[in-house]
């Protein structure tokens, strides 16, 4: 879809194959959702300016809906950042370790990250469930839709980190990382 980035399942065998397929499907869905969300944000915010100056009017819900789309775009893009290996880190010590130790450390750290993301995702699902009856200020939609992307994005991130834990370097998408550089 992006021309450079592959969303095909990473090479995997046996029990890992379904997980690879699930992650690839989620990545592809997140990528398309991001295109729609960012495009929607641009349209909403620029339409608001156009309405204000050209038609001397304003749409009351654009602020809240554009913020909602922004929150979704941030949390859906976090796992793609893990896939690309572009989240900022300090490598000043780890690069000096022997290769085998680097690999073990990367897996342990990824497992810790996966546990943290699972906890955040679980808490977000509970919070969304609890807040489901609360409505947004400007439209007749549950305010919990602001929390749902936290749950989805963190669950998706946990899967990527789990994948790194199990396969070592499987989480890095060299093409996307190169694109982002």
């Amino acid at each position, binding site marked *: 879809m992006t021309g450079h980035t592959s969303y095909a399942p990473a090479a995997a065998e046996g029990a890992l194959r379904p997980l690879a397929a699930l992650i690839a499907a989620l990545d592809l869905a997140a990528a398309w959702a991001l295109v729609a969300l960012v495009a929607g944000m641009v349209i909403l915010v620029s339409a608001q300016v156009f309405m204000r100056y050209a038609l001397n009017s304003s749409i009351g819900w654009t602020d809240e809906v554009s913020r909602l789309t922004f929150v979704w775009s*941030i*949390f859906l*893009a976090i796992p793609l950042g893990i896939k690309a290996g572009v989240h900022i880190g300090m490598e000043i*010590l780890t690069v000096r370790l022997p290769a085998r130790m680097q690999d073990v450390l*990367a897996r342990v750290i990824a497992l810790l990250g996966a546990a943290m993301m699972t906890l955040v995702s679980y808490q977000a699902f509970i919070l969304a469930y609890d807040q489901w009856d609360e409505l947004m200020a400007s439209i007749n939609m549950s305010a919990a839709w602001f*929390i749902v992307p936290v749950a989805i994005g963190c669950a998706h991130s946990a899967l990527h980190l789990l994948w790194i834990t199990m396969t070592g370097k499987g989480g890095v998408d060299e093409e996307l990382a190169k694109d982002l*550089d």
Partner: protein
Amino acid sequence: MTLLIIFLFLGIGLLGMPLAFALGASAIAGLIVSDVDFNLLPSRMMNAVNAFPLMSIPFFILAGELMLKAGMMERLIDLANTIVGRVRGGLGHVTMLAGLGLSTVSGAAVADASALGSTLIPSLRKHYGVGFSAAVCAAAANLGPIIPPSGAMIVYAFMAGPTVSVGGMFMAGIVPGLILVCAMMAMVSFIAIRRNYPLTGEAFALGRVLHELKRSIIIFLMPVVVIGGIVGGAFTATEGSAIAVVYALLIGLFVTRRLTLADLPEAIIRTAVTSAIVGAMIAFASVVTYMLTIDQLPQHLTALMKAITGSPIAYLLIVAAALFVVGMFLESNAAYIMLVPLLHPIALQYGIDPLHFGFLFVFNLVIGMLTPPVGVVLFVLCGLTGLKLGELAWHVWPFIAIMYALLFICMFFPAIVLTVPRMLGY
């Protein structure tokens, strides 16, 4: 609890965990120790990024991407070449002016380094050698976050809260940015004459300048409309950045016709992922900030600083020294997100102007993008040229020296930073 959070963050950060996630893990440890409910995590994380001003980050990134895809670099280079191409070190001056032009539509040094390096280094290295060529591109790219619009200034203003406006920060960067360009061009001339670099380019001709100016005017209209609109109060920074995206799209699709609809998904996904890197840090850091506030760290830190010195200048020097070290080891966005909530309120206690402090803070960390071992702009140019980090650092140090000299001049003469914002009512 504060010490636990800080040491845990540093420990797992140094072991290789991405900083955003290291912040999250240390925040969870803080929640466990202080017996605070875990449901604080998702609500604070969501609220941290549920902010209209932050939307300008992806918008300005996307606008810059689209302008580059629309072929603006070539037009900027052609224009700069007609003006300064024939003087000694001409291609170096062209790079500086192209960097200046690029910085008016793009607010990120890394993206600018990639654009300048990939476009100009092939010509530069033929005449000046690869080291100087890469150093000039690195220095020119660093104008990106100083001249408005600036992603760094947006993040700073957001983290500093209501005492700092994005428009005010943008205006604070104009005069220092222009002084920096002139000083760096003087350095290019000095090095070119000393090393006897050959003359390149065609002789100055007013007709050619006017022709190229006409071709480039469409690029320069964008900052005039967008930044002018933000400063003039016609729209907010976020609205201005969305207009910048629409403007870049129209230029690329209908004027230069170098952009196609098929280019958009890739540009948008790259933009979203780049924004999420910052967004993830802001989200997780918000929980840490909350825990540190419960522990009254900002108050303790303020009391400690006041006990050390009562002088605002001494505070600025201490912060500059700290950021010099931080800039060598930490990516700048991470530094804004973690340090601005702690250091900005102390500056206000000292009576330092928030825009003055904000500009110095940003400028210091922007210079840090050129200092090894973690100099992200150097990494980009090493990747493009095959130079080793140490070699490039050797060539770039004269420009770093100029930047630090200007930083200290701005520190002692706040009018350089504050005159334009004050004139415009900030």
